């Protein structure tokens, strides 16, 4: 009985010029296979072969996405030693952070790198979001199979994840800031009608803030949220490639097509290409014209490395000079006066202050209106905006496109409100959250009872 030759029977014939390498996952047997291996290799296609010059421009994207990614990298790397040094226990968390700050060699610097990267990441991710909005870059341009609106949705998710990571992060030192942030944060959740109290109990791991609370937020901070951000980030980058790069590139391609140009070199590769053209040749696409594109390696790679290196340098140097604060140990008995959230949540703190509405005997708690409903509406609007935007596709990838001026103005006004509320919370709120003008001095009140 004869059997078909199995894989082991046939010595693997390498293609001419292909040598066996111990760490190669494929051994191409022919030129065609080696070509396929290159074509299907993910790492070799992180970048496209060619990049549009306009999408590399510093003044188009300000490279905010790359800076965000660099900050994420810094956060992961600086988080690793902290993961070893920090103890997620109510009794020892504060002490371990204090040790990181004052005892561990370079501990203070590592913690500062982590904290500054986090603060900068909130800012830069938001600026990135604003850039994408103002350039209409969530819009599909002229490429086929584009789903930029979904990448925008992922981006909004990444922004929220960034905020949650920051929130869960500043709880971990278990100082006064942490304790009262958890109190306020989980009471906002608790203000949701019907399910609120159960949500709060689930977050706290009980009805009071204690060890189960700390370990829950710790696990969210070091496992679930980073894993979520990692997955979303991977998909975000993949979609950028699938959508044909930045929206500016689409525009560059169309502009090129419209402009009367000198005859470009022509070529055809396939019968179909010939069949579809009006003449027996296909016009070379503008992606390959030399004046609009550059090779991704090294041009894109070099700029990316400059941005990453620059981000790392700035954060590392800032971390030497800016120490991370550590408030008094968490004290359930005393609320600090005033008790202020970090700057990026101050607008929310201001809103929950101002949104308690009384209609006769009926009262809507500002915690629910300002803490749940309003942010929920804003996030929903932000998420579905690409489907509400009816501007023409020529507006994709253009700063302040004329056809989108109304939505850009509305967006900027909302941003202005957030910035104004943040400023009020930062500068104009004193003890008992009373309003003070910047030139007024706060009364000298005891910070403890």
């Amino acid at each position: 009985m004869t059997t078909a030759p199995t894989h082991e029977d046939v010595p693997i014939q390498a293609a001419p010029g292909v040598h066996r390498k111990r760490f190669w996952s494929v051994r191409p047997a022919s030129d065609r296979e080696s070509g396929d291996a290159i074509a299907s290799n993910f790492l070799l296609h992180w970048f496209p072969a060619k990049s549009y010059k306009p999408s590399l421009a510093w003044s188009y994207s300000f490279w905010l996405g790359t800076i965000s990614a660099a900050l994420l990298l810094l956060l992961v790397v600086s988080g690793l030693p902290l993961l070893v040094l920090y103890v997620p226990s109510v009794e020892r968390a504060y002490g371990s952070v204090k040790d990181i700050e004052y005892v561990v060699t370079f501990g203070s610097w590592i913690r500062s790198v982590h904290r500054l990267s986090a603060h900068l990441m909130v800012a830069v991710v938001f600026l990135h979001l604003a850039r994408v909005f103002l350039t209409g870059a969530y819009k599909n341009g002229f490429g086929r199979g584009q789903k930029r609106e979904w990448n925008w949705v992922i981006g909004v998710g990444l922004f929220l994840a960034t905020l949650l990571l920051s929130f869960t992060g500043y709880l971990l030192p278990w100082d006064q800031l942490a304790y009262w942030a958890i109190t306020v944060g989980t009471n906002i959740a608790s203000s949701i009608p019907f399910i609120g109290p159960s949500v709060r109990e689930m977050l706290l791991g009980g009805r009071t803030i204690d060890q189960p609370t700390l370990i829950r937020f710790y696990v969210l901070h070091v496992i679930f949220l980073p894993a979520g951000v990692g997955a979303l980030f991977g998909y975000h980058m993949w979609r950028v490639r699938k959508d044909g790069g930045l929206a500016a590139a689409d525009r560059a391609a169309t502009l090129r097509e419209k402009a009367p140009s000198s005859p470009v070199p022509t070529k055809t590769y396939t019968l179909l290409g010939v069949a579809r053209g009006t003449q027996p040749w296909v016009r070379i696409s503008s992606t390959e014209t030399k004046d609009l594109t550059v090779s991704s390696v090294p041009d894109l790679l070099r700029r990316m490395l400059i941005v990453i290196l620059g981000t790392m340098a700035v954060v590392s140097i800032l971390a030497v000079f800016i120490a991370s604060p550590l408030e008094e140990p968490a004290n359930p008995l005393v609320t600090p006066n005033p008790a202020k959230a970090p700057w990026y949540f101050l607008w929310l703190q201001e809103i929950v202050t101002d949104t308690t509405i009384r209609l006769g005997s009926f009262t809507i708690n500002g915690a629910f209106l300002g803490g749940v409903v309003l942010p929920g509406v804003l996030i929903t609007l932000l998420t579905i905006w690409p489907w509400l935007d009816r501007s023409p596709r020529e507006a994709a990838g253009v700063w302040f496109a004329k056809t989108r001026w109304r939505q850009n103005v509305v967006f900027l006004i909302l941003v202005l409100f957030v910035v104004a509320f943040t400023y009020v919370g930062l500068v104009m709120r004193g003890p008992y959250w009373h309003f003070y003008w910047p030139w007024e001095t706060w009364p000298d009140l005891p910070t403890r009872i």
Partner: protein
Amino acid sequence: MVDKNRRDFLIKTGIGAGAVALAAQGAASLRSLVPNVSYDAPTTVKLGVPNDFPEGMRFLPDQRLFVFREGAVFHAVSAVCTHLGCTVRAEALPAAETKIVEGHPLRLTHQFLCPCHGSKYSGDGGNVSGPAPKPLAWYHLSLSADDGELVVDLAREVGREFRLTLA
């Protein structure tokens, strides 16, 4: 044909069983995160003998409670802001005033201010300004039968007419 149906059936059963098993395991894992036991502090707390309480107001941080004494009459007001749960601070009024609360006169010596979002309460716990949606809670006070200590029941809210009058 018979064979194909059987294979089809087995494949679908297998996928279905797998999905059910995954869902059940996922649900079990999530359920484990819902606490079955809450190690809360007891809600009925002894506060000490009544005579240790000064005339006027005393703040008990552990219970987040203000205990007021007017001679032999006691009442207790929560220090937990009804807006988002921060601990309010008492500020003595320049001069005590008497107000009729729920049909009973009440001597007000303080007002309460929240450091988190600026809510302001009057001495009887009424929400005066700021985002607080309702008044501070009043809790039930009693005397313990065994040693005569003042006992607060933090799970039992009472109306603002409540007073504990010692014999």
